[in-house]
């Protein structure tokens, strides 16, 4: 190799663990201009960049990184935004180690280029420059689009279709837009101001946002289709799973959705200034090993817990959470009880959870997901004291829309069926994508689905061909 390469990523400065577990501010500070340019110069500018294949929306990665290396940050962000309208979000929450960074050629010998951190840098740089310029929008087509759900998928469709001159209305059930980015992912990982800025930008472009509108109840899809030409369903996977084990309805046992919604959307961490309360447990067990579980565990710590355990039935290696989240959680002192499965919660006289019974597991043969299946070890049961339990074992799509839209085909888990090439559902004039189709997936996949559907929706609106 001609160029001498620094083997490791330029580290990103962050709040020290001792301080950050007592506040809600974002943990990493992001790169400075100098650090970003240094990291960008680690990129080899491959002729056949493998990283692009690792990116679900095929960002021109060496392209934007090259602009950063040269100090042309505006050009870098413009290049990013050709493919990704939410780079400030994705730079923070994408599982880069399973996507672009996993296949970066540097990984053969060294750490990959810190593509995520560079993406975040470019987006934050743009934000620091002040307001975004609103693009000139082509003359109105006279077509009306209804988007249901304002998560990353819905926002992507809205952005694409408003720029093509359609009239776009986005319906959201909750009182804030942003989907999981706002009600689920905590402030210390993704500052809400970033999401609201993107939403405000869409509103400035002309997107109409209707909050407090629960499609399936306030109006059905069929009722919307009376006044809109097309509908995009991006309602996510909001139905929390429980394990159906004894004691799950005791006081102090939460679903991750409830715990995070109280903390984030309702700002219970600011109680009593905000009215919504949350149990501030001292000894908290979070069940699960994904991003959701990490977010719950770290939230519990910030709410004042003395001991927080992640209880996960497989081993470290199988944890689906982003590497960075696991590192941050470990750094903050969260205890990982791996190969452990709760089988029962035990309550006190007032029906508050006080203990949980678990069983130890070992890894057996690989299952359908390719991961080794955890099997209980007979007689390994043990009981441990807890005062709060958060169940973060997964979620599936909310049935409200399928129940009120009989001609919409759904799969076994209640997920809406959509053609991966176009996003079309079984119901004419209806498209769907993101978590409502895939089950709990990722931000970037929801955005990718939105982009695919927007293209197909535009085609339909212009030609009338389904």
């Amino acid at each position, binding site marked *: 190799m001609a160029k001498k390469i620094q083997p490791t990523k330029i580290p990103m400065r962050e709040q020290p663990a001792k301080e950050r577990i007592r506040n809600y501010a974002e943990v990493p500070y992001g790169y400075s201009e100098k650090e970003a340019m240094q990291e960008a110069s680690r990129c080899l500018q491959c002729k056949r960049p493998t990283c692009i294949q690792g990116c679900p929306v095929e960002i021109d990665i060496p392209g934007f990184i090259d602009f950063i290396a040269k100090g042309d940050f505006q050009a870098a962000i413009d290049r990013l935004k050709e493919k990704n309208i939410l780079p400030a979000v994705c730079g923070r929450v994408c599982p880069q180690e399973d996507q672009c960074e996993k296949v970066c050629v540097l990984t053969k010998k060294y750490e990959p280029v810190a593509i995520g951190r560079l993406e975040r840098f470019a987006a934050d740089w743009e934000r620091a420059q002040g307001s975004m310029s609103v693009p000139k929008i082509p003359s109105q087509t006279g077509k009306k689009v209804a988007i249901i759900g304002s998560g990353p998928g819905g926002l992507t469709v809205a952005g694409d279709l408003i720029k093509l001159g359609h009239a776009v209305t986005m319906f959201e059930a909750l009182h804030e837009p942003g989907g999981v980015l706002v009600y689920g992912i905590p402030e210390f990982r993704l500052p809400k101001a970033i999401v609201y800025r993107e939403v405000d930008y869409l509103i400035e472009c002309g997107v109409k946002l209707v909050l407090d509108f629960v499609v399936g109840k306030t109006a059905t899809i069929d009722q919307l289709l009376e006044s809109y030409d097309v509908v995009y369903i991006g309602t996510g996977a909001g139905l929390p799973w429980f394990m159906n084990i004894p004691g799950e309805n005791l006081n102090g046992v939460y679903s991750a959705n409830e715990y995070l919604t109280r903390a984030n959307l309702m700002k219970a961490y600011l109680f009593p200034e905000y*009215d919504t309360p949350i149990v501030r447990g001292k000894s908290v067990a979070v069940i699960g090993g994904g991003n959701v579980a990490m977010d719950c565990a770290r939230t519990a710590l910030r709410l004042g817990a003395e001991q927080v355990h992640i209880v996960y039935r497989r081993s470290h290696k199988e944890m689906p959470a982003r590497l960075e989240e696991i590192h941050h959680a470990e750094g903050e002192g969260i205890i990982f009880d791996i190969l452990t499965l709760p089988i029962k919660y035990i309550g006190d006289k007032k029906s508050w959870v006080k203990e949980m019974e678990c069983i130890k597991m070992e890894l057996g043969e690989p299952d359908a997901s390719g991961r080794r299946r955890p099997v209980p070890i007979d007689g390994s049961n043990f009981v441990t004291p807890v005062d709060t339990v958060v169940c973060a074992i997964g979620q599936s799509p*909310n049935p409200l829309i399928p129940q009120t839209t009989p001609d919409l085909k759904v799969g076994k888990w209640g997920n809406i069926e959509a053609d991966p090439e176009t996003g079309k559902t079984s119901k004419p004039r209806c498209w769907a994508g993101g978590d409502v189709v895939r089950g709990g997936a990722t931000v970037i996949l929801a955005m990718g689905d939105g982009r695919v559907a927007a293209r197909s929706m535009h085609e339909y609106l212009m030609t009338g061909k389904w």
Partner: protein
Amino acid sequence: MYKVIERKQIVPNIHLLVVETEHIHKNAHAGEFVVVRADEKGERIPLNLVDWDERSVSMVFMEVGTSTSKLAALKPGDEIATLAGPLGKPTEKSEGKKIVCIGGCYGIGALNPVLRMFKANKNHVTTIIEARSDFLLYWRERLKEHSDELYEITRDGTRGVRGHINDFLVEHLKKSKVDLVYVQGCTYLTYLASETTRPFGIKTIVGLNPIMVDATGMCGVCRVTINGETKFGCVDGPEFDGHQVDWDNLLSRRKIYIREEVYSLSFYECERYG
């Protein structure tokens, strides 16, 4: 933001709230509710729909904690931060049945659309409203319009029949053939009524009021145990068969935040009155 058209105290601690909205009336049915949030820092709380038209919805609420105190302080022209609905499953329809409908505290108001629906479907409707004392009973004339007969019960005997709902109900069920009992009000009332009808084997539908947040099936805080199975109050209910409800579980789950609720109310009152 949603404009308040009217807010008035009907009887001590119980208020009528009318809020402007064009969205909700189109799909509204008896037995459904809305979620309201008084201001940007407020909690999302569920309230039954008591009436609706093209430009507004009405609720009746009892002032108990911070959220309802905030609502009780509203004046016409003020705005509330959230109003979403209609939510929940509508009351199951029946036709040509003999139905006894019971309401207490805010549940008296909540009976209004249900009686109207039952009556429109040619049922024979006997309405019973109850309160501690005469000065806490309201909407007698309004409910009578949709009832074949209406009884009032007060614990101190200052109006109507003196005593408790269970004594009156037992006497009534002994005398008349009843197909269905429907109850709206606090958990104690719904529980008491269900236990009273159980020996008679008469189907009893109760409106439950578990704690809620989103009220769209997203968080699961509203879970109730019905016939041994976990259901979400906001989307599977809020009305259930009273004979299948695990009352202990409901009562204890309603108390999860008691400490915080008391603290929150004193915090709010301090801020408001100094």
